[in-house]
């Protein structure tokens, strides 16, 4: 392992602290306080702006997250796609558009929470912190898309192997050490988000209702054993 001391701290120590916290705390919270797993929707208190800020944010952030996961799991696919400049251009522009939509949605969400007095009542200090982290994270992502418009290829060539080196407990920071400062910032904040995740309302992502589409419409629970 080579690299600067700070790089070691940011790209080896932080990821493991973040991932350990993420897994232990989400499981612990689910077991000890499953009541607190809720999307904590505020639509009931303010139903007009809600649509215009929440919907763009969620759809855009889903696309962005999916894009990151594709690059993580099939980096070769991304590289093959990007081998043609036009296709790289299409990918980067779509990513930028979704990134901007996420950013606008997020700013809208924060604005709505700040200006609607009823919604402000159900906004905890933790919410403000996670909004701050997310704002920095999304803004830096948009910044990368603007200033380094070949970021998708970088993810495939550098980020993906680096992340896999983390997951396989063989951290190799040589992939990330030479990256521009903005990209490093984005990576560090990604781990901060992951580490802070279990303490926030973001846990609702983990309880998305997948069985709904397959279950019978009516649910009956019996307290006595049935013959």
């Amino acid at each position: 392992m080579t690299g600067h001391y700070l790089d070691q701290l940011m790209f080896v120590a932080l990821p493991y602290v973040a991932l350990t916290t993420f897994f232990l705390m989400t499981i612990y919270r689910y077991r000890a306080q499953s009541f607190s797993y809720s999307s904590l929707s505020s639509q009931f208190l303010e139903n007009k702006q809600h649509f215009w800020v929440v919907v763009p944010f969620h759809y855009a952030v889903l696309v962005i997250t999916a894009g990151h996961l594709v690059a993580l799991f099939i980096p070769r696919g991304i590289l093959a796609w990007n081998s043609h400049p036009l296709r790289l251009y299409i990918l980067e522009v779509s990513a930028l558009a979704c990134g901007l939509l996420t950013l606008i949605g997020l700013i809208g969400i924060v604005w709505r929470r700040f200006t609607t007095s009823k919604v402000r009542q159900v906004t905890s200090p933790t919410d403000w912190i996670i909004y701050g982290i997310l704002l920095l994270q999304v803004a830096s992502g948009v910044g990368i898309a603007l200033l380094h418009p070949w970021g998708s290829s970088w993810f495939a060539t550098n980020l993906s192997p680096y992340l896999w080196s983390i997951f396989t407990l063989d951290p190799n920071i040589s992939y990330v050490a030479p990256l521009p400062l903005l990209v490093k910032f984005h990576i560090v904040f990604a781990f901060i988000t992951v580490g802070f995740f279990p303490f926030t309302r973001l846990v609702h992502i983990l309880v998305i209702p997948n069985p709904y589409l397959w279950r019978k419409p009516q649910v009956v629970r019996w307290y006595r054993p049935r013959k």
Partner: protein
Amino acid sequence: MNVRSQIAMVFHLDKCIGCHTCSIACKNVWTDRKGTEYMWWNNVETKPGTGYPTKWEDQDKYKGGWEKKNGHLEIISTGKAKVIPNIFHNPHMPSMDDYYEPWTYDYQHLFNAPEGDDQPTARPVSMITGEELAIESGPNWDDDLSGSKLYAENDPNLAGLSEQQRLQLSSVEQLVFFYLPRICNHCLNPCCVAACPSGALYKRGEDGIVLIDQQRCRAWRACVSACPYKKTYYNWYTGKSEKCILCFPRLETGQAPACFHSCVGRIRYLGVVLYDADRMEEVANLPNDELIEGQRSMILDPNDPEVIRAARANGVPDGVIESAQLSPVYQMVKVWKIALPPHIEYRTLPMLFYVPPLAPVQSNKSDDVIDHVSENLFHDIDDARVPMKYFANLFGAGNEGPVRYALAKQKAVRWHRRAITVGDVDREAADRILREADCTIEEAEAIYQLTSLCTFEDRFVIPPMYREQAVEMLKDPHEHRQSVGFGFSSGPKRGL
């Protein structure tokens, strides 16, 4: 035959005096917490009126309930195809504005106000933000406001009434209203349960009470949109939905629910009915004019040996079957057919039934002379100030037949009793009216007994709930007692 037991209810509207004692009993027991201030699991509405939340029956606005599509039922608001794309923003979710913003008064100001020329006042402040509030609506905001252009005139049940009838309802001489107390109907085919993406809502198998598992609710809010009666509520503070639990902790200890227990007019009846769960889908799919009879046919005769055998085979305890045989609800709904489900066209098969009220007669019928002689002492039900069509929209899925039957029978009971107690009406006329109403003297006496002279035990036939066996199911009770000790119970804490 898949026999299940269900706790069902009847509210006798002729006896409701609109005192709201039920609402207050419920509020004090269940919804005096932060986040639930605006909730009225039990509320009493003035009809004609817009109700709570405002115009809840207007399904063009709220999109509650089921609809028939290509021969099967679909949830109007958030069916399976729509629930995922709509999960971030529920397009048919009512907001607090549709209910009201709860408030209190700044009483401290009365003590702390600086000395001045005027008396200090206690200004209303929002219970959500603490800010000063210009009150625009509140609980029972249109209480007794029948005839009002702002409220009563917007009652969705006025659909299909002639212009003449509508005008009469809002003219001072013709003003009329009755009360409609509402709680969760604990439906056989609950839309809220079917809509919950997390599977947090469920129907208790043993007694049919519909509950929300607070640990599994994730605030997707689909139940609030789906329930056509708007009887699931979103707790804005805990981020969980809540609803009437039919006071199951009271029922399990043999007590009537708080709203039933406290009812001043003694309008409420509670008892268990046995029904055939296998027929639910078929019945919920019937055409509108067959729904009431269809639901009645699902309810089984608890004295029929075949039903008893099937119930036992299905694990219904003998104590529950015996309770079903004494059920006042079974009598009123199935035998006498005087209790009707509200808005069964929503196809949730509600298990709370209403005895429609005999509304007052049109007293200015013959010119300006108000004429009450014995011959029309109990007026023709079609002369009532509330048009039959209105009742039909509320209790008959638009059909007058079942409502007419229920009202005619009640009228016949009155004639019969008048002939006995006062004697100023002809016995033969009373008999004729009984015959016309498809009512025997024995039945009329039984209806009279159960509606007028009913004791607590007549009104509430609470089945044994056998909750002790629920513990047994998991563990030997003696072992359970030794291993659990005092245990811990933590209150519901809002997520970070």
